[in-house]
């Protein structure tokens, strides 16, 4: 039986592509891993490697739009009889592209001849919703449709969707999903967003007990992560570039670990979860402050240059924290997540496991979480340490951080 060659999915928006070059002529010999053809999508051209060694036959025509998953050639073993093109019956591993930036999981679409690979939970959800599973693109291993791929999980967890989600910018490109830290909210991202092109899609999610998100009792890190994951699963925006600051960084790590195929890129700003030390008094002070006079000194401890925290900024920050129930809920959350001034969560092994491009950005003058926790990162993680920056790199070095968040081509545009 010859090996089928299918058109792979090489970028996340892609549904079809055109073959623009065959590197191997019809009937010629190719080795596994050698360049076989180039495809072109709306956005990019990619080289695709041969999934097997042998002679290439039944090549698809150049320049014609084909759906991903379509068989574009067959590779016959040496000596194997070449007849008419075989039926496309079996599911085969999808050839990996040579592009480092392509999503790790390549979705395998379903054809009429194959039953969709799906979990029982996904099948039941599709039945209940009257949905044809073949129309759902699976994010699980080998294209398996998981429960979350079929639609938002409602009823299973009544609390889902209770976190505030604020969408800005355009709709094209990989959205940035921003997760703030303890005692933060949506407004903390505004200096950074001012440095991003207005077309960049940005989704801010407010953590439980923060901003306008629901107040709920948190019994531990996994509890908070679950709330966040429930909301994340309903965003319905394809793979994202996830950005987390401080506690939001630890949550971003946990989220990337449990939703690895939905996170294309991860950026952590002074994240927690990479070591035990944390400035407990500062957390208590920030959360407990009831007036500008007591909040100000702790806000200054967040940054390298205290002059950033002008009296009017402090007043504005205090106005957002007037609600005593919000302060009490955050204090309860802090007591669970950072008991006795210690980071109770440990995401170091998650960081070791992750495979998506990951960057850690930290200020060397951080007085809340020691920047040296960043040194635990494995070699594949990019590390950017800023000299005169404290715990808020996205505010203190907003322009520089914004540049790290933009893909190279858009970075050029943003300079216009």
């Amino acid at each position: 039986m010859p090996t089928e060659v299918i058109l792979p999915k090489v970028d996340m928006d892609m549904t079809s592509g055109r073959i623009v070059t065959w590197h191997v002529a019809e009937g010629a010999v190719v080795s596994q891993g050698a360049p076989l053809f180039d495809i072109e999508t709306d956005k990019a051209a990619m080289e695709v490697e041969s999934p097997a060694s042998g002679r290439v036959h039944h090549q698809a025509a150049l320049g014609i739009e084909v759906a991903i998953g379509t068989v574009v050639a067959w590779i016959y073993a040496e000596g194997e009889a070449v007849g008419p093109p075989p039926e496309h019956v079996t599911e085969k591993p999808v050839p990996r592209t040579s592009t480092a930036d392509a999503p790790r999981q390549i979705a395998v679409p379903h054809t009429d001849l194959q039953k969709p690979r799906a979990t029982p939970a996904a099948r039941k959800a599709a039945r209940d919703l009257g949905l044809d599973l073949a129309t759902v693109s699976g994010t699980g291993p080998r294209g398996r449709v998981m429960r979350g791929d079929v639609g938002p999980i409602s009823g299973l967890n009544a609390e889902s969707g209770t976190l505030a989600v604020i969408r800005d910018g355009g709709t094209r490109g990989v959205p940035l999903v921003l997760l703030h830290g303890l005692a933060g909210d949506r407004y903390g991202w505004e200096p950074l967003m001012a440095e991003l092109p207005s077309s960049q899609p940005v989704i801010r999610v407010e953590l439980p007990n923060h901003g306008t998100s629901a107040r709920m009792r948190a019994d531990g890190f996994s509890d908070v992560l679950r709330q966040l994951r429930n909301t994340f699963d309903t965003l319905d925006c394809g793979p994202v570039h996830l950005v987390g600051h401080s506690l939001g960084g630890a949550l971003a790590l946990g989220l990337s670990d449990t939703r690895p195929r939905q996170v294309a890129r991860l950026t952590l700003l002074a994240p927690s979860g990479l070591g035990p030390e944390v400035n407990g008094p500062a957390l208590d002070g920030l959360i407990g402050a009831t007036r500008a006079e007591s909040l100000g000194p702790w806000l200054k401890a967040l940054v390298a240059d205290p002059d950033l925290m002008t009296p009017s900024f402090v007043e504005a920050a205090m106005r957002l924290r007037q609600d005593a129930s919000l302060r009490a809920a955050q204090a309860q959350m802090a007591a669970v997540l950072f008991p006795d001034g210690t980071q109770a969560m440990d995401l170091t092994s998650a960081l070791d496991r992750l495979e998506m491009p990951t960057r850690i950005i930290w200020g060397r003058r951080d007085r809340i979480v020691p920047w040296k926790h960043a040194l635990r990162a494995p070699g594949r993680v990019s590390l950017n340490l800023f000299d005169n920056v404290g715990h808020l790199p996205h505010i203190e070095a907003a322009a520089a951080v914004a540049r790290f968040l933009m893909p190279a081509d858009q970075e050029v545009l943003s300079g216009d």
Partner: protein
Amino acid sequence: MNIAVVDSGLRELSYAEAIREAMDIALATDPRVVLMGEDIGVYGGAFQVTGDLIDKYGPDRVMDTPISELGGAGVAVGAALTGLRPIFEFQFSDFATLAMEQIVNQAAKLRYMLGGAVSVPLVMRFPAGSGTGAAAQHSQSLEAWFGHVPGLKVVQPSTPQDAKGLLLAALDDPDPVMIFEHKLLYKMRGPVPEGAYWVPLDKAEVRRTGTDVTVVATGIMVHKALEAAEVLAGEGIAAEVIDLRSIRPLDRDTVLASVRKTGRLTCVYEAVKTLGIGAEVSAMVAESDAFDYLDAPIVRLGGADSPIPYNPDLERAVVPQVPDIIAAVRDQARGAL
């Protein structure tokens, strides 16, 4: 019946002490109760569970039996059949192989063979499991064998509190109850209520609640699963740990309710994985309406298809350990399977 706590004070006993206390209460309150087994008298039992009970109750009620498991078990079955409430101890559960005729063909069948005219209120205790360097003939986990026999009840206490309450409940049961005690648990300490109380023979216990993965564990694996769950919680994965407690009958409701909630099932048991308790639990889920809630392949972690090795490193390697559980549950929660 739920645990009737007479005194919930903070008193702690070891698992072995809790079993001894249950036997002490039974001997003191029910003249029909007798203990039987090899070296349980003056020697105090192979694992010192019986201890000095012979001093208190004398050799007529704490009886050393000859080195013949078949003979001893036969006497125990006969005694139960004719009005006593014997508690028979095997030195090692492995030696039950010698008494299978009495357990499987007699104790389990007599009520049925005689049309319900008799019952066999027999309790048997089996020190089981690996980890003591006792090698292949003294380290097995054979509980699933007995779980395959209609007519028997089979329980595996994982805590001192359950060890006492399940033994007292077993004595109250009109039919034969097999209690598998993991040898490494005998020294484990935990809170044990004073006085008599009964833990139901057919109820699993949720030891830790969680939303992401259901971990069904038995015996000593409950503790390993709880340790794994603690580590996973720090990574944001909430595992629900169910202590199965009874493998015959199985507490279907507790397991299915949990799987409906989490959509993921990992079974952890020390006995050989093949044809084991995890297969039964997995099949029970797959055959039920909880099947529709599964969002990942089921995972079984069990003993290797190997006799228990003498070499301590290999002995550890052939049964599931905490890192194995962490890795399996994490992969399930991440959708990586």
